[in-house]
């Protein structure tokens, strides 16, 4: 556990464990997607996951949120064991926020309604209060003036920022991002990354699947490289990019950073 110890010295990262995954395995039918995943995430840690397409990055993230069920091993999120008990699932989901590649905003609701929906119906918050919170986070992602528009009226970058705000409104303690910028035009990627950086600065625990290596260098405490359903390498960003240990990582990095 030398690495975990090393990290706990970094300011903003506490000793508390936010997510702990032990011996987790997952199959789709006969296809073994995730194999023996062990991962411990400290509160306040910011982890970037990368790897080639199909390596199981999304699946890993989605298992943490119980969007997919795993078949073996344990996932403990914030002290709650992820089991088939609906109550536990609900508890975990309301502590874990998630942002998808394609934003998945609700197109029939305004931005504000998108953000207040879950607080009102899940947290049973009064509408007024929910709206105040929503406006607070919309300001944080710098689009308070779009609150009454519909998602279809915003650009992709704005939509992704709304998606982030929507998750934040549930005041999650952990945020998961699944390639949040890969569906965006080059001009819009920056807006979203900036938002994520500012989240990171606030000390939010983050797990982020992304290929934006600039972002990884800038904010990650740890970079995890996955291939064929396994964690192949994990390290601090500097080390990871400059001295990749495994051949597979080297190959991957050369492709990504290549052009």
């Amino acid at each position, binding site marked *: 556990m030398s690495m975990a110890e090393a990290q706990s010295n970094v300011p903003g990262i506490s000793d508390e464990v936010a997510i702990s995954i032990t011996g987790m395995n997952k199959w789709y039918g006969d296809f073994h997607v995730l194999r023996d995943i062990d991962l411990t995430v400290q509160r306040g840690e910011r982890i970037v996951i990368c790897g080639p397409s199909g390596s199981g990055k999304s699946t890993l993230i989605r298992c943490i949120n119980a969007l997919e069920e795993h078949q073996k091993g344990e996932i403990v999120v914030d002290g709650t064991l992820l089991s088939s008990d609906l109550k536990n699932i609900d508890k975990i989901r309301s502590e874990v926020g998630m942002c998808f590649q394609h934003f998945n905003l609700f197109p029939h609701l305004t931005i504000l309604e998108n953000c207040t929906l879950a607080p009102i119906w899940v947290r049973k918050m009064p509408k007024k209060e929910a709206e105040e919170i929503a406006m607070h986070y919309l300001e944080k992602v710098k689009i308070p003036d779009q609150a009454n528009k519909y998602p279809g009226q915003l650009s992709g970058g704005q939509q992704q920022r709304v998606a982030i705000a929507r998750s934040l409104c*549930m005041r999650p303690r952990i945020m998961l991002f699944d390639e949040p910028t890969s569906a965006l035009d080059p001009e819009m990627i920056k807006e979203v990354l900036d938002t994520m950086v500012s989240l990171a600065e606030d000390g939010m625990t983050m797990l982020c699947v992304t290929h934006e290596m600039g972002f990884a260098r800038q904010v990650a405490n740890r970079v995890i490289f996955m291939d064929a359903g396994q964690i192949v390498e994990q390290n601090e960003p500097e080390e990871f990019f400059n001295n990749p240990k495994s051949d597979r990582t080297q190959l991957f990095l050369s492709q990504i950073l290549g052009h």
Partner: protein
Amino acid sequence: MSDTHANTVAFVRETQIPQSPPPATERGIVKWLRENMFSSVLNSILSLLSIFFIFMLIKDLGPWFWNSTWNAENLAECRELNSGACFAVINERWPQFFFGFYPAEERWRPVLAFLLLFPALAPVLFDKAPRALLVVTLLFPFVAYWLIWGGSIAFPLAVLLGFVLAFVIWKALAKTQPTIALIVSVLVLVLYQLVVGGAGLVENILMGILGNPEDGPALLAFEEVESRNIGGFLLTLILGITSISLALPIGILLALGRQSDLIIIKYICVGFIEFIRGVPLITLLFVANVLLAYFLPPGTTFDLILRVVIMVTAFAAAYLAEVVRGGLAALPRGQYEAADSLGLDYWQAMQLIILPQALKISIPGIVNVFIGLFKDTVLVSIISMYDPLGIVQPILADSDWNGILWELYGFVALFFFIFCYAMSQYSRYLEQKLRTDHR
């Protein structure tokens, strides 16, 4: 060549070129005709053929319309007066086309109910209508029933009470246990209406207060009108509107059931849907007319209109379920996942996220089912109900109008065309609106 940039190594435009209007291409009728009707040899031939066809139609049908008669006692008189159509029959029999054999002096009641339909429908059809009108929508079935069938208001009130009761229970439980709340409230409703006889009990109490119209004058009571006497377009509208409004929720539930992970529920729904869609509506009407009595406890007879409504509803619901299923399937998986990841439970996700979108997508299909259902109501003439098509029979049998046909069928066809066309145009409007919505 182009000196503009050939002269400079790097071409840089310094000034903006202003927008200019498009070149004045020739306009006018000649161009339109050439582009739209005579753009090629084939098109010219087609155009000429079409014009010839229209000409023949007008030549044949025109005089029939121009030389029509609107006032005559019987067909013979019509024929004497003029050579064309004899619309006098419509003139004489229109009350039957509209109301069947509804008592003449009570006809204002269905008319009033029909007028009330508009405020009741407004909040459903147009999202700009004031929300307060929803109350009218909810009360409309009961008021309309009372107006059309008459009798004391006690009965519809008693039934309404059952719904209110069920709603209150649902509301109380829904916060904590949505699934159970739904089941319990439906159970309460069924128990209230059927088993315990709550409705009858309450009805009697209310009658006690208001007075029983059968014993003498009573408050808030109309003369009762038998289902048998209701006919014509009134019957079509009753069947159509009731079945449509019942079929929609049932269809949605069936669609959700069919999409469900729960195998047994899924197959129950699939079986029901495929069975209903596999047989002609007329056989279902046979069942309503002939077999239903066998499948109910001895002695329960209920109104033929109600029986037909049940069957038509089941029929439409099965078709609706397929349409809604299409809408559900068209939603990106991400919407379900986003709802899940926010912690919404199944019913919340359905009610807040999935259904509003799925229904929007399926509106054209839903309206098509409605149009189909509305048209299908004429099938009840086969089981000898006096719907607009059925009402033609006694007119044909009348010695005054023996031999008249086109005028009657034409009138009925016109009515259906107006209603169905209006519906399909409305769905087009919705489609258009939803496509541009939020963009």
